[in-house]
């Protein structure tokens, strides 16, 4: 299967190990992965801050770049949420009904990683091994916008050696919320502190989620607390194998994986 990877601008620039992990997983499962170089960003940050007029160009770019593909995969619940749930509305509100139609037509083939693996490829065991105590935070947009349900947990449960512990209050927002983290920093931190406390209560050494932006927020709080808990994207856990462990030192031993 020929699959286009939408890395997302944030991952491309700040967390390249995540899209690299997606490439690893998909190729291991027999997919041919393409990375269309013209891609940039879904425009979510602009849209959610109120700059729809600036975002509409990115909505058009997304349609132009990804229209030729049958399936698009992105390691971010919130970026996929923006594409599927917001793009058509942004186009409509900016007086671009033509683009709104293209956006609606293309929305169905854009998948968040866990959806693609479980629903499209029909796989829950991706051949990963990760012998660590892990807790999983379901990010709001994957949970309530995409409704991925327990697909990420199905994938994690199939990982060899994993000690998966339940996160108390898992479905509560971590408080990141894009520019909310800056515009309402105090409230954002209050929410994140509660999330960090729940994470610490599990005794997990790794906090896993499907969005690096939320992980940067909770991870930033945990780092500031010198909590000794690291954060990792779901894709990186699913990409890990016994071979990796034999060849290298601890995966993700430093804050954000090996760089």
């Amino acid at each position: 299967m020929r699959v286009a990877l939408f890395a997302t601008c944030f991952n491309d620039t700040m967390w390249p190990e995540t899209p690299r992990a997606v490439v690893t997983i998909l190729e291991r499962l027999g997919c041919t992965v393409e990375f269309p170089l013209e891609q940039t960003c879904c425009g979510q940050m602009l849209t959610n801050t109120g700059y729809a007029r600036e975002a509409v160009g990115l909505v058009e770019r997304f349609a132009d770049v990804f229209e030729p593909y049958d399936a698009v995969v992105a390691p971010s619940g919130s970026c996929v949420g923006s594409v599927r749930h917001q793009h058509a509305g942004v186009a409509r509100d900016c007086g671009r009904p033509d683009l709104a139609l293209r956006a609606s037509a293309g929305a169905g083939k854009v998948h968040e990683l866990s959806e693609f693996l479980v629903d499209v490829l029909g796989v829950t065991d991706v051949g990963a091994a990760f012998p660590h105590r892990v807790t999983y935070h379901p990010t709001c947009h994957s949970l309530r916008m995409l409704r991925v349900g327990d697909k990420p947990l199905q994938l994690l449960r199939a990982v060899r050696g994993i000690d998966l512990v339940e996160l108390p209050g898992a479905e509560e927002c971590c408080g990141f919320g894009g520019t909310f983290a800056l515009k309402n920093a105090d409230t954002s931190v209050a929410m994140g502190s509660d999330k960090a406390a729940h994470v610490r209560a599990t005794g997990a050494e790794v906090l896993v989620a499907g969005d690096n932006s939320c992980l940067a927020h909770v991870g930033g709080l945990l780092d500031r607390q010198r909590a000794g808990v690291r954060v990792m994207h779901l894709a990186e856990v699913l990409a890990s194998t016994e071979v990796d462990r034999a060849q290298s030192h601890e995966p993700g031993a430093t804050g954000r994986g090996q760089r």
Partner: protein
Amino acid sequence: MSATFVGMPAFPTAAREALGNAQQRRNLRHATHTIRDKRARVVAEVDDWEELRVAGAAIKDHVLTHLDTYLEQLEESLTRAGATVHWASDAAEANRIVVDLVRATGSQEVVKVKSMATQEIELNEALEAAGIDAWETDLAELIVQLGHDRPSHILVPAIHRNRAEIREIFLREMGAVGEPAPAGLTSEPRELAEAARTHLREKFLRAKVAISGANFAVAETGTLVVVESEGNGRMCLTLPETLISVVGIEKVLPTVADLEVMLQLLPRSSTGERMNPYTSMWTGVTPGDGPQDVHVVLLDNGRTSALADDLDRQALRCIRCSACLNVCPVYERVGGHAYGSVYPGPIGAVLNPLIRGTSSAVDKSLPYASSLCGACFDACPVRIQIPDLLVRLRTRVVDEKRGGLPSGEEIAMKGMAWVLGDADRLERAQKGSELGGRLLRRRTSLGRLPGPLSAWTDARDAPTPPEETFRTWWKRERG
């Protein structure tokens, strides 16, 4: 604390203060989680909850798209049933109508059923200015009124108070306005309720005029419905001679049969009960039974401005159940006062800018007072897409600011859009972050940073950029 919300600061400023109030944080956390869990339990019992939500939304949408027709029908039905209908385009007009009606009775006081519409128009203040005492009879409203406080929740206006605080307020304030609290009052709920009951009974038995709102107004029959838990509403609606109800124009339902859906949705969403203890319905005047002088003030106060837009209109479906407040992570931590309105929480963040406009500091900031987590939509019994409405309101706030001297944010967002508008430009910008990554190679994260970035790093470490972006890696490995 002042009793009105005029001149409130922007949400983040008010929120910072509220977040520092440890007692209030505890009270709110306990209360919201208790109601949240109760609601989840009783909603889970209903097999067709989703169908009910869809039906509730459909009923409301139908009414809102034919509002003129149903309002005229409601007026006809009410008039036929012996009630007098008044139309108020804004708060000032509604207050004037009510004050005149009370004056005409010669009474110097009124008893009140808890009502969001009268809170919204600040009727108590208008009555006070006219020399008329307005006694709130809902327990939580009574606590707020006696405490010279502001409501912080739609359903439980004193949610920010705990029992010990309530006891103090009762002991300190009740005597000044009526039957004092017993000297040995403890903070046992039963004793507190008894003190309120004794205090209020005197007022119920004396009152000649009552003021209420309505949860629903049925167009076909002219029946008004009040849903409550304590029985104080029933007292107010039956004992006095004159009954004045202030009702938002969006409260109308076509038929009595529509109550079947709404009365399943409301109590479960609101108090987490299968059915509320008291549901009062009255249709104009019943000779020899209950109030003989019945008035209904139909209130617009900005509602029609939300009616024009297909998506904004959803906000008028709201049945004020407060489920969205109880599940909101922002509300849970900040409480209601920071929203600068009697409508706090997610729905307040939408409704206030829609009906008041976005000119004040607080109304401009409300659409941003959300992490867009979506818990409100899942809880809303009439499926209001609150996060989507918030995002559109943000666009409105930004668009209204355009044209002047651009703000730092506008410059940053435009710059970002320019960089992201072209893959080569993005790649050139990424070269800068790769350089930063090489310089910071030994660090895994960054501590405190200066300038606007301090909003992030005051409490959170910041990630360091990698030495190689994904794009660079892909080109090198696969290009």
